[in-house]
């Protein structure tokens, strides 16, 4: 057991895996500085800076993975996948299916994500919903140091491509690099339990696609990930003061999505609130609603997510991202509605019978 910072936990897991598996290489912009410990330990053959050429070096990662390496490709901010989506969308994600299961591209795309430090809407997106919708791509979003290490280990063992998203509000080096820059005149609402925590030594892999229940509760289920988990836990404590018991589930993986846990929780509490820092439309929260509906569970549903382009102005940004206040308000709205949770016959079956 060791108490580690979030990013420390990721890097230690990576360092450990690199000792066991010589095929693991790390490249991306500035990694020789940002991962200096790993750079100095494993040297410039395995860890190296790239030019600012995301499309090329992500494609290089896919090719290298296909040809036998296990690259960890660092896309500095997930927003920059906008420059370089093709290797991931049209190649890495498709390869297993296209090759009839005979070939795969085991690379990890590590990128920072998320907002809360005033960097504007081009540098603070999450995009996990969009990425998670691509067949053949795994997407993970840790919220604690333990899972940060565990999910990195699991990603490195996964046979296909994994997008590993590191929230900047949890990851002190990113927050320092992009948000603070050595200043003591700025402050950020960093959830302490996410930024620092106990990690087993050695860490063990966190299986992909397995959600974790971090708070039990019978009145309402809050499903979240990343920083949202901590905001939800805070909101749950506030709700407890008014006599409501909220369950909080940390998804940890967007793809594969732990539908079983979500559906079971929806059935048990009959009220589901999704707290998702990513965009509200066409993404994870809608997918969760669909999963619950498809399972035939009739649960009251609401979501707190990012509804538009993230504004630069700090106060506006704080209101745009899911915050504890918004979660509490949405939860109270749900709690005012009757808990349903009753089983309905699946629509398909019903239709068939009607015919």
């Amino acid at each position, binding site marked *: 057991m060791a108490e580690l910072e979030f990013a420390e936990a990721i890097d230690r897991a990576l360092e450990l895996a690199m000792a066991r598996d010589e095929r693991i290489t790390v490249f991306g912009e500035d990694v020789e500085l940002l991962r200096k410990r790993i750079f100095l330990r494993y040297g410039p053959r395995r860890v190296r800076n790239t030019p*600012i050429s995301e499309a090329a070096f992500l494609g290089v990662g896919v090719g290298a993975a296909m040809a036998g390496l296990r690259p960890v490709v660092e896309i500095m901010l997930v927003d920059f996948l906008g*420059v370089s989506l093709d290797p991931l969308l049209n190649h890495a994600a498709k390869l297993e299916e296209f090759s009839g299961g005979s070939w795969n591209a085991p690379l990890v795309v590590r990128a920072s994500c998320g907002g809360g430090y005033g960097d504007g809407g081009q540098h603070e997106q999450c995009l996990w919903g969009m990425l998670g919708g691509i067949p053949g791509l795994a997407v993970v979003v840790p919220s604690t140091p333990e899972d940060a290490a565990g999910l990195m280990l699991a990603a490195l063992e996964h046979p296909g491509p994994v997008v590993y998203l590191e929230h900047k509000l949890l990851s002190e080096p990113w927050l320092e690099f992009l948000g603070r820059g050595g200043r003591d005149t700025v402050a950020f609402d960093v959830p302490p339990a996410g930024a620092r925590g106990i990690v087993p030594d050695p860490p063990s892999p966190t299986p992909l696609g397995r959600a974790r229940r971090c708070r039990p509760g019978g009145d309402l289920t809050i499903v979240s990930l990343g920083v949202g988990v901590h905001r939800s836990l805070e909101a749950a404590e506030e709700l407890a003061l008014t006599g409501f018991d909220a369950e909080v589930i940390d998804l940890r993986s967007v793809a594969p999505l732990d539908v079983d846990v979500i559906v079971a929780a929806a059935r048990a509490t009959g009220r589901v609130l999704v707290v998702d820092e990513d965009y509200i439309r066409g993404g994870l929260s809608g997918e969760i609603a669909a999963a619950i509906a498809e399972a035939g569970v009739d649960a009251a549903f609401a979501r707190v997510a990012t509804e538009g382009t993230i504004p630069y102005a700090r106060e506006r940004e704080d209101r745009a991202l899911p915050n504890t206040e918004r979660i509490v308000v949405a939860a109270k709205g749900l709690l005012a509605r009757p808990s349903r949770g009753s089983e309905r016959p699946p629509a398909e079956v019903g239709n068939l019978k009607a015919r």
Partner: protein
Amino acid sequence: MIELPRRCRADRRELFRTMAEIRAFELASGRLWRQGLISGEMHLGIGEEGVVAGVMAHVRDGDAIAFDHRSGPPLVARGVPLEPLLLEMLGDERGLCRGRGGHMHFFAPDQLAAGSGIVGAAASLAAGFAFAAEHLRPGSACVAFFGEGAANQGMVLEALNLAAAWKLPVVFVCKDNGWAITVRSGTVTGGDLLRRARGLGVRARHANGAKVEAVYAEAAEAFARARAGRGPTFLHASCPRIEGHFLGDPLVRLVREPRREAPAMAPDVVAGLAARPGAPVGLRVRALARTSHTVARLGMGQLRPGRDPVARMRRRLGRRSAARLERDAGDRVEGALRRVLEMTGNEGGGRRG
């Protein structure tokens, strides 16, 4: 033969006035950032005043500009009022973009001026502006400002090719400060950028960005060709990056305050060098040498005052003449800053997260 504008000889005082105003604006932005009134990253254009002033002197109404994350200088040079720029960086509703964009996302539709925080985006955007210009504003030209780091982005190379193939009126200004974020560009760049541009069919010229008159002269021809329908130019201008990639750049801090910054890095360095298993000793030493070399190069080159284009121009103009122009520029910026701080209730400086 391209006919150059009549007054192609630079008005040095006018150019220096622009440079001084940019410098004063950037220093003021730096202060606001240090006070915590500007959040997130803050990329200053200190060191590239000569390049920006020399190019922007040729921009007139109807021309469009696309620029990168060093967004203050081109807009200051364009004559955009300073208050809305400062208010935008403070995230104020009265800012240029109502506080929604911030300094990496300045948009001034009246001047057809647009920024982006995505490295290399300016090149294709400017080519698009140029395509529109052919249809809507014949005889006008478009500028793209980007760095040599961006010259390794596919979209920049694709935009160069497209602009050459379509003979678009674009002036691609590559501000070469030698650094791609924290990486020395030479270590991640193959070949020569001028030849690269020529290989894509784009006329390519170099100017020493420390000499604003040299940039001015090369830009004059580039603009004249663009306006005359003779296609794009790649104008490569070298300049220093005095304040690092952004304020708080860890490498700059390490060079400037080694006794404060080095101890924080030491544990990782020691652990990285000592941990087992790992690379053979030779490779680890090479990695360490590479890192030390990077830091040393930053200390020797970028932060040396001799490369400062504003300081050079001071010498050229004479100290008294330069001081007067700088005082005027400083007064304009400080006046705007004072008004903005009053408007936002930040007279005493402030603290924000």
